[in-house]
């Protein structure tokens, strides 16, 4: 009897499919631009398709905003700022933000499905992380809107005006929330430009803004590609540019914005070091390494893509890590049991393949999960490189995929030196049961975010942002208000 049962699907770790229903998304076949409180056609008809990266099938047709459309959006935002939003009290702004937060919660399932279809991330993550956190950000900043006098920036701090906000494809809804919530709380109006490959959840958010009866023009959403973002960055009517994305594009934006009076915050790439000492709580640490690099397929700017492990436990950590990597369930993002979903785009997949090929050429030992990958769609099996040296490209460049580089160290000093030996400075993790050592290391790491005995944990009350080539400015917490106040 028991023999039969252990041969069941449960015993072999292959749970029967448990798919979320795609119909919940109720996607439209085409979307216009959200300008002045309503969806409208773009000035010239240049639609582009947004694909489901797990199947390569088109989900919907989206408008490409030209510079004329960006102009219209900025004019609308300026008008809304001058005539409405700058005259709206903090308590009133707060009311709208609370409404938006509640509406996101009410339509959480729909958001989760849209996000997973458009982005390729597992439904478990969009359902349990992206959407609840997006709502939490609106709730959090709703609370600040009428308390700006007490935020530590002096009495009656003023908003900047019109904010142009350009967000990436890795957390489309969450990044929209990170950008919009503090900007609106502080009294700015916004023109938001979602990423080219993941515009749908922002367009669903536009519906929510209508539902919340947010005054027209306070938030405008212009979909498009790099040219749309470029038009927004260059528009003279914009007072502030907030960008999250690659360091390469961030550098261009900073150059373009430099001769203007525009305020700028940049949240760019990273090569996060996850530092493991020999006394770390081993099981939770293994989970933390997994979460650090395979969460969201590694499409996380603060991903713990470099594992620095103390030499005395390196073999054991690697053995346990690889056993765990083999357990990751890779496949249909809509399946509720999927751990690792699809790579967001063909271009990103090509980049991951290119960089991992260097890893092998440069002599790192490659271990790739034996998981089966679907035939269609963009997939990359979870991969670990052992025996990586500081000089290897896989230790220096941001791969932005499910690829971990493992390096070793002997002393805390060496760990700090290796962790800091990077152009980036976004996030690090420290794993140890010894609090004094954790603090000693944390003090010396050059990174905006340092996690102790955890990784990739986000909370609206906690500021997030980088140093050096990871950008500047903070999002989240009281600090996040500063990016949208003239202080």
């Amino acid at each position, binding site marked *: *009897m*028991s023999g039969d*049962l*252990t041969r*069941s*699907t*449960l*015993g*072999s*770790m292959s*749970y*029967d*499919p*448990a798919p979320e229903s795609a119909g919940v998304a109720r996607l439209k076949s085409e979307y216009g631009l959200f300008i002045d409180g309503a969806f409208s056609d773009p000035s010239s008809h240049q639609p582009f398709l947004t694909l489901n990266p797990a199947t390569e099938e088109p989900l919907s047709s989206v408008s490409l905003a030209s510079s004329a459309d960006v102009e219209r959006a900025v004019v609308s935002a300026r008008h809304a700022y001058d005539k409405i939003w700058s005259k709206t009290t903090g308590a009133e702004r707060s009311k709208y933000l609370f409404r938006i937060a509640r509406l996101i919660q009410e339509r959480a399932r729909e958001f989760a499905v849209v996000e997973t279809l458009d982005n390729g991330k597992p439904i*478990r993550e969009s359902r*349990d992380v992206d959407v609840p956190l997006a709502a939490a950000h609106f709730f959090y900043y709703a609370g600040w809107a009428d308390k700006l006098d007490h935020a530590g920036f002096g009495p009656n701090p003023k908003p900047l005006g019109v904010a142009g906000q350009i967000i990436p494809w890795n957390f489309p809804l969450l990044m929209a929330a990170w950008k919009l919530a503090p900007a609106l709380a502080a009294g700015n109006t916004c023109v938001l430009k979602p990423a080219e490959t993941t515009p749908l959840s922002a367009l669903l958010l536009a519906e929510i803004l209508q539902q919340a009866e947010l005054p027209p023009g306070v938030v405008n959403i212009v979909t498009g590609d790099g040219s749309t973002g470029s038009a927004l960055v260059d528009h003279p009517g914009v007072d502030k540019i907030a960008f999250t994305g690659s360091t390469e594009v961030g550098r261009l934006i900073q150059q373009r914005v430099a001769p203007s009076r525009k305020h700028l915050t940049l949240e760019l790439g990273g090569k996060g070091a996850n530092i493991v000492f020999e*006394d*770390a*709580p*081993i*099981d*939770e*640490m293994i*989970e*933390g390494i997994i979460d650090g690099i395979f969460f969201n397929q590694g499409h996380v700017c603060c991903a713990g893509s470099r594992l620095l492990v103390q030499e005395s436990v390196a*073999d054991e950590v*690697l*053995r346990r890590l*690889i*056993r765990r990597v*083999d*357990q990751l369930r890779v496949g249909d993002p809509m399946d*509720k*049991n999927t751990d690792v979903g699809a790579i967001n785009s063909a271009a990103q997949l090509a980049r991951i393949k290119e960089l991992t090929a260097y890893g*092998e050429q440069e002599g790192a*030992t*490659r*271990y*790739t999960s*034996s998981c089966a990958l679907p035939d269609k769609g963009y997939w990359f*099996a979870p991969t670990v490189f*052992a025996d990586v040296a500081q000089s290897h490209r896989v230790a220096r460049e941001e791969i932005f995929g499910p690829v971990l580089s493992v390096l070793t160290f002997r002393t805390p000093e060496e760990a700090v030196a290796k962790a800091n030996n990077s152009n980036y400075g976004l996030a690090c993790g420290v794993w140890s*049961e010894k609090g004094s050592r954790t603090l000693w290391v944390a003090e010396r790491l050059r990174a905006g975010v340092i996690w102790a*005995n*955890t990784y990739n944990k986000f909370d609206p009350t906690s500021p997030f942002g980088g140093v050096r080539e990871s950008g500047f400015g903070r999002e989240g917490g009281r600090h996040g208000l500063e990016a949208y106040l003239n202080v």
Partner: protein
Amino acid sequence: MSTAPLRLVSTDERGVQLPTESALPSVESECQLKALLKGLSGVDAVGAEARAAKLATRSLKKSTKLAAIDLAISMVDLTTLEGADTPGRVTSLCTKAMRPDPSDASVPSAAAVCVYPDLVAHARSVLGNSSVAVASVATAFPSGRASLNVKLLDVKEAVSAGADEIDMVIDRGAFLSGRVGQVLDEVMAVKEVCGDAHLKVILETGELVTYDNVRRASWIAMLGGADFIKTSTGKVSVNATLPTALVMLEAVRDFGESTGRLVGVKVAGGIRNTKDALRYLVVVNETAGSAWLTPNKFRFGASSLLNDLLMQRLKQHRGVYVRPDEFSGD
């Protein structure tokens, strides 16, 4: 995609590397035992709870769910541990354990019936030669507050009355005050008088409080020869929890890797419905691995759980729920 052979691991399907010969750590003094326990990795409580909560979101559907329900039924130690227990109630439990759903022979039997020592003989006579084992709590259950001689006598009597499995409690007072050697000695002494009977060692995790303690107590029990480590008596306010089970499953996995001996885990107390039971099975599957997905290696100490499993089983087959009265109360 090329995959270089890894120098570190040659794994079986669970990824567990079994030593060719048993390498049980030698513990000859309390000092050595303390050093061994201190050498165990700590447990980060936040991380362990987060991991358990994440595993609890697994969704078992269709054939997986059916197989899991049947597996859970076969893992139930149908338990009655009340002062008011009667031979009649035990008869009813035994009958139910052998044939949980009288209308359906395809329902597997439960693993065991668990009673106080004085009812072992009666349970034995009802169960006869069936596959259902007689388990008995012993060693001054549930508090364990008696002398070692009394505890050993308790065990001997239960075994001679026909118990196949003994559920002992550890001396939590000794453990918490640091007399870990005494805890180990007691487990070894009880194991010895158990003879052929399987020994389950109850840690009473609700009284150990921290996950670090749970991990250390698990190792003491395993070093002492436990065939199973068990969470709780069911008699204190905090019984089995998912993160506690996770920590214990990590312990049996690690112990198996270093000694080659696979120790079972029994969760007891507060597991009342199918949803909870399936969550435990997922944690077993994804922590210790499929080698533990058998009644020989994982058990539920429960009473009302069985009826819920039967009800959900019928729901899967018929598509509708039946009335709770469809199944016997005991």
